[in-house]
């Protein structure tokens, strides 16, 4: 029989995240011994079967890594292929890509902020339960999410795995009138998000400042979606082509997702908080106003406030979508011609959860010879583990249920997408006291 210090917590499957994973924590004598994010999402081996496929197939195939952020995969893939072939997409086609990405950020962020993360702060099991006490908030949130999806559907045919993006641009460019039809709904949903942000600002945030290395894309003129250099608040500043020179991946036995770290340094933080901190000046005036009003200022080092950063980014995405639609003129051709040539191409875009890097080597016939993909959740694994270690250490006296909830909430700060990362969660806290039995 274990002594009075021995306690055990088990949550078999972390909810309200995308994919399958668990958490295993070992506590001995009130000291955190080990924190393992266990990812048991079955490996699907995309980098394996991409070999031998045609370079034009990569956007549609890699979209299937993740149903939540297919645009991110399509955009990283098309940019990597264009990079390999020496092509560059500009003008209205580039603007349409940003518009489609706005739709994905709105849809994915609204889902996470209101349906997956807010219930943690307000003490509900899910958004449906939350809708009984906060019916207007949930209804508005669903509307915001729907309008994001409408952008994606209009440009791509459907919300999930849209069919219109291709290497070189699009299969079909939308008519001006079709985009104009969205404007009124975009404005309404933007204002609804602004009001909802005031509610989010009143949530209770644990005091949990961490000294992160934030990593995000940075572009001279705009809040980053598809292009830019990779920068950090601790001096990183390199072109995307150097991704694997600066970032290394390691495999751990308890995860089917590779762990990323900055060579010679360690864990880093990607996602909305990183983007917000590193690109604040590039936000629209309206998004900056919203950030100020809800008390979110760069640098924000509290991961629990990522929910506010997401809300600000939703507002930005609406502003940017409205700007793009206002300036839209249908391009002469829906795509530029991209002929294959042997070489290596790199693409890095800002998925809702952070930077998503693709690298392909293709031959002269356009056949993929090698593929490597670094998804945001894999890059955030180490930082999630270090947050949990710190959080559990600070709250070691809490009962198991409370501690479990805190851990889950801390993991959801990163909106982990395990389907992506594996290319996540079961909470097991094993507390022992006294001598180590092994």
């Amino acid at each position, binding site marked *: 029989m274990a002594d009075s210090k021995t306690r055990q917590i088990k949550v078999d499957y972390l909810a309200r995240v995308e994919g399958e994973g668990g958490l295993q924590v070992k506590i001995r004598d009130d000291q955190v011994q080990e924190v393992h994010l266990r990812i048991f999402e079955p*490996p*699907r081996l*995309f980098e394996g*079967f991409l070999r031998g496929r045609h370079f034009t197939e990569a956007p549609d195939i890699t979209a299937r890594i993740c149903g939540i952020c297919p645009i991110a995969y399509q955009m990283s893939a098309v940019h990597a292929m264009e990079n390999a072939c020496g092509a560059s997409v500009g003008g209205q086609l580039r603007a349409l890509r940003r518009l489609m990405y706005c739709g994905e950020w709105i849809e994915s962020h609204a889902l996470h902020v209101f349906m997956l993360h807010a219930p943690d702060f307000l003490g509900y099991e899910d958004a449906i339960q939350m*809708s009984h006490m906060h019916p207007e908030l949930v209804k508005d949130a*669903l509307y915001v999410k729907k309008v994001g999806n409408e952008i994606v559907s209009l440009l791509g045919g459907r919300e999930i795995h849209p069919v219109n993006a291709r290497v070189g641009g699009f299969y079909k460019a939308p008519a001006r009138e079709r985009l104009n039809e969205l404007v009124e709904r975009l404005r309404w949903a933007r204002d609804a998000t602004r009001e909802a942000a005031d509610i989010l600002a009143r949530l209770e945030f644990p005091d949990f400042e961490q000294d992160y290395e934030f990593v995000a894309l940075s572009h001279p003129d705009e809040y980053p979606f598809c292009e830019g250099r990779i920068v950090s608040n601790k001096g990183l500043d390199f072109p995307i082509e150097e991704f694997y020179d600066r970032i290394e991946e390691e495999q751990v036995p308890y995860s089917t997702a590779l762990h990323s770290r900055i060579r010679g340094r360690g864990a880093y933080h990607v996602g909305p908080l990183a983007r917000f901190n590193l690109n604040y000046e590039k936000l629209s005036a309206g998004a900056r106003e919203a950030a100020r009003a809800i008390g979110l200022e760069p640098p924000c080092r509290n991961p629990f406030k990522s929910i506010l950063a997401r809300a600000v980014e939703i507002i930005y995405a609406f502003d940017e979508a409205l700007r793009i639609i206002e300036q839209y003129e249908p391009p002469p051709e829906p795509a530029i011609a991209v002929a294959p040539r042997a070489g290596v191409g790199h693409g890095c875009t800002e998925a809702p959860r952070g930077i998503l890097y693709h690298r392909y080597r293709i031959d002269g016939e356009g056949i993929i010879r090698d593929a490597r993909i670094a998804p945001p959740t894999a890059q955030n694994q180490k930082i999630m583990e270090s947050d949990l270690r710190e959080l559990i250490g600070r709250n070691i006296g809490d009962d198991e249920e409370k501690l479990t909830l805190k851990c*889950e909430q801390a993991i959801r700060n990163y909106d982990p997408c395990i389907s992506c990362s594996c290319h996540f969660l079961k909470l097991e806290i094993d507390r022992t006291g006294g001598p180590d039995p092994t």
Partner: protein
Amino acid sequence: MGRKHPKPKLAVWKFASCDGCQLSILDCEDELLDIAGAVEIAYFPEATRAVVKGPYDISLVEGSVTTPHDAERIHKIRRASTVLITIGACATTGGIQALRNFTEVADYVRAVYPTPQYIETLSKSTPITDHVFVDFELRGCPINKLLLLELISAYLNGRKPVVPEYALCLECKRLGNTCVMVAHGAPCMGPVTQAGCGALCPSYNRPCYGCFGPKRTPNTGSLAEWWRHHRDMSEEELVRAFRGFNAWSEAFRRASEAHEQTTMK
């Protein structure tokens, strides 16, 4: 426990997949609260922490079986479910990850992971119906959420779901699209692919890539012959055309294997 629930209990299960098909439920923004009113969402970890014990009236299964553990788990789910419906190409035909089925899976594992021995995976990605009895298979990569709503309401009302089994071409014609194959010679999978998406690709001026899988009695040989004749497609291109998101469906598998054998002659 054991109390009779007034509302039917719905459970959503995940196997190897991208989460997109179950996200379709959350993408029913206008209908979601009504769905939650009509059924008890008893198990749906992507959306809720709450877990209601089985048995379940309707189980929706997303994803394919790719690990020894999952091959066991699906039997437990079947035993706990009155009606089991697979949603999407992974659950119904093995999905894009079934491309491993045509090769040596260890090569793929080595291509992705530096320490392959940590990875436990089966040599094949297989549809749910290879393991347990399935009441209905909803096609698509991803599924069409409107067909999912139709399916759930049909089961709730004890009627047969109205889900098309004919070719995508019929849907495309009804929309008045110009045929991308006849007019532009595009290699469209429409003639052999089941309808249901709303003929999206041809509506966006691109050929269908077969994400709803084969229609009933598809003539893949005739289609391939047309492509070869009119587009001068190589055997390698024909293999890739049938080896997509439903590569392990019987009709597309036979077609791709036939062309692969030709390339090896």
